[in-house]
């Protein structure tokens, strides 16, 4: 009897063991560089907590990753269990039901809201309250400036960023004192910042809560944005380089022909690695002009609806985003600014940034991140953005005046918003 019992015990424990081994789940993470190095760095720590989850990385180039994700979501097959979504694509993937709503049970992401930088949760939340991704890094906007070029014109950074008027007036001095140098890559950048600041609560960039189109020749925010950009263009202060990372933009940086640039904190990584290698120690950072605070990108982790391992995926996302040690590790790995507030209190934030002449810019960015206002996302934002940018380009080019361009843009957006 005793022997049989022991045998039964042995057999059943063997079965249990076998079952436990079978429970080992594999999750795939769809990601793009540099964010893939964050995952690589995170796996050992994650596996200490969750030894039964194996993490596989599927990394594609930035654009390819988002294209592949679109295809996978449209056909319902082939997406990873955890996918990275850059901010520029949130609106796109927020449509339809391709992504799991993290606000719902069992995820209840809402409980973590207060732990993150304020504007990140609204960024990832759709009009109807679904949340498509957990924020992992943020891009607090900053004015980068060449200390040597400013010194030559006897202009201080504080004079440049006091207000937009002061930026233009003192920018003229900088350009005059440094022939061949431009104040800024493209005049439209100023408009983009102004469009993102001074929003009324509940407003998106182009639409309000009730889907009403805000683009109009009577909307002070749009008129002001277009006016300031036009003044910069007319004063011949910009290199007319178009969007960031265009060939003209890159060349201007590499040749050292730019006195200032507005961008996210992440730009420093690009500058020191390839964009402006030769100018280490000559760049500094301050807040954006006119007391504006804007965000430049940011990354999110989401779970496609088609995933079969949502629990394991969610555990991994929670580890990546809500674990302060991991968020600090990610910051050390790629320099992506943590979205988790607790991670921003690490001693590393008191250190200077070597490329920026050991200026303690991380403290600057931390307070800037806290001041960025949330902007509501609308599913038609990509359409409106394109139309408004086209209108702005025509104003800058002098083919249309501001009221005409804005009135036409309003019509074009309204006919899409049906």
């Amino acid at each position, binding site marked *: 009897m005793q022997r049989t019992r022991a045998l039964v015990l042995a057999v059943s424990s063997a079965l249990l063991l076998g079952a436990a081994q079978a429970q080992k789940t594999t999750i795939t993470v769809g990601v793009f560089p540099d964010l893939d190095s964050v995952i690589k760095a995170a796996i050992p720590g994650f596996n200490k907590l969750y030894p039964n989850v194996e993490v596989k990385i599927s990394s594609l180039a930035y654009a390819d990753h988002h294209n592949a994700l679109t295809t996978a979501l*449209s056909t319902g097959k082939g997406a990873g269990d955890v996918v990275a979504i850059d901010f520029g694509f949130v609106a796109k993937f927020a449509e339809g039901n391709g992504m799991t709503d993290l606000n719902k049970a069992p995820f209840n992401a809402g409980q973590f809201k207060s732990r993150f930088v304020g504007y990140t949760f609204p960024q990832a939340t759709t009009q109807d309250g679904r949340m498509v991704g957990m924020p992992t890094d943020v891009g607090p906007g900053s004015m980068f400036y060449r200390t040597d070029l400013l010194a030559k014109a006897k202009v201080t950074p504080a004079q440049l960023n006091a207000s937009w008027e002061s930026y233009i007036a003192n920018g003229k001095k900088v350009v005059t004192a440094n022939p061949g140098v431009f104040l800024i890559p493209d005049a439209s950048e100023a408009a983009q910042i102004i469009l993102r600041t001074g929003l009324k609560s509940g407003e998106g960039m182009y639409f309000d809560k009730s889907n009403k189109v805000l683009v109009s020749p009577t909307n002070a925010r749009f008129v002001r944005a277009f006016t300031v950009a036009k003044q910069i263009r007319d004063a011949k202060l910009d290199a007319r380089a178009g969007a960031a990372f265009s060939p003209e933009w890159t060349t201007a940086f590499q040749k050292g022909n730019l006195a200032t640039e507005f961008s996210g904190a992440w730009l420093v990584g690009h500058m020191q690695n390839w964009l402006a290698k030769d100018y280490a120690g000559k760049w500094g950072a301050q807040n954006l002009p006119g007391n504006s605070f804007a965000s430049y990108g940011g990354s999110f982790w989401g779970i496609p609806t088609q995933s079969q391992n949502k629990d394991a995926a969610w555990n991994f996302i929670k580890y990546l985003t809500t674990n302060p040690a991991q968020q600090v590790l990610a910051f050390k790995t790629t320099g992506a600014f943590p979205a988790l507030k607790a991670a921003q209190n690490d001693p590393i934030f008191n250190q200077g940034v070597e490329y920026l002449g050991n200026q303690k810019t991380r403290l600057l960015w931390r307070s800037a991140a806290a001041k960025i206002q949330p902007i509501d996302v609308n599913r038609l934002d990509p359409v409106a953005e394109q139309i408004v940018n086209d209108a702005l380009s025509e104003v800058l080019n002098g083919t249309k005046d501001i009221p005409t361009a804005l009135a036409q843009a309003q019509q074009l957006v309204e006919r899409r918003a049906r």
Partner: protein
Amino acid sequence: MTATPSIPQQVSSGWDKFQRRYAPYIFISPFFLLFFAFSLFPILFNAYLSVHNWQPGSGLGDMKFVGLRNFSDNLTDPTFWQSLRNTAILAVESGVPQHLIALPLAFAIHMGLKRVQSLVTAVYFLPYITSVVAISVVFFTLFSWQYGALNAGLNALHNLPLIGGLFPAEKINWLGEVQYVQPAIAMVVVWRYVGWNVLLYLAGLQAIPSDIYEAASIDGATRAQQFRFITLPLLRPTIFLAVTLTLIGGFQLFEEPFVLTNGSGGTGQQGLTTIMYMFRTYNSYSDAGVAAAMSWLLFAVIGILSLINNRIFGRSGLAGKD
């Protein structure tokens, strides 16, 4: 005894029958399988898509039937009409020079450069097989406003003593001024496709028997007369083919304007072609139905223009009657 050998015979005759009946189908099936999977199915799916409202991110189940709304949406969209206008202008600006250069060039190569003919043709053909990314780098270094070779060259000419006044003092923003965007794009297209047309025309020229030319020269016809009265008429089928291909290619222009304007369509959207706008509608606006409808509208435009082209250059057309 008699039944035993008849069995394999029967089998082999059955196999024979099977072979004879189905082997041709099996042999041509690879083409048809590929055609169905990669040509016919996408076309039919696109037609289906054009009457539905669909955001690609939300899965195939989320399509909503909307009838012809996608078509009316396009037809009332000013940007669609602008893109069509841009496409037409670019097709003319790039298409006409292509043939005006390629035809005489092919004639000259055919007549004068017998020995190095293949080498010269290969050189002209090279741009056609060059990757668009490489082309974009080359033309950026040419066209760039501040850093371009073209502006550097013009600037150098401006500083010459006597003729300097003929050249602009200020740098020209080739891809940033409304009036220069389309010519700049057209130039790249011409550069890229002249070699292809030279090749087509050379093939056509080689098909014209040389004794006709001999007879003409005995009769005292000059080179120019030979070109006008022998080459051009006999080359009409080739011209028809080349023009048709240019027409279709021109109205489907995408890569060159996309790369040169960094995907933005350029200043004042002058470089936004219909295919680019379709891509934008699908890719950035996530409006697959409207994009599908747009491709059918473009198909209609190309179809009509091809018919007109057929009337002018085709065998049954006006020109065929002389």
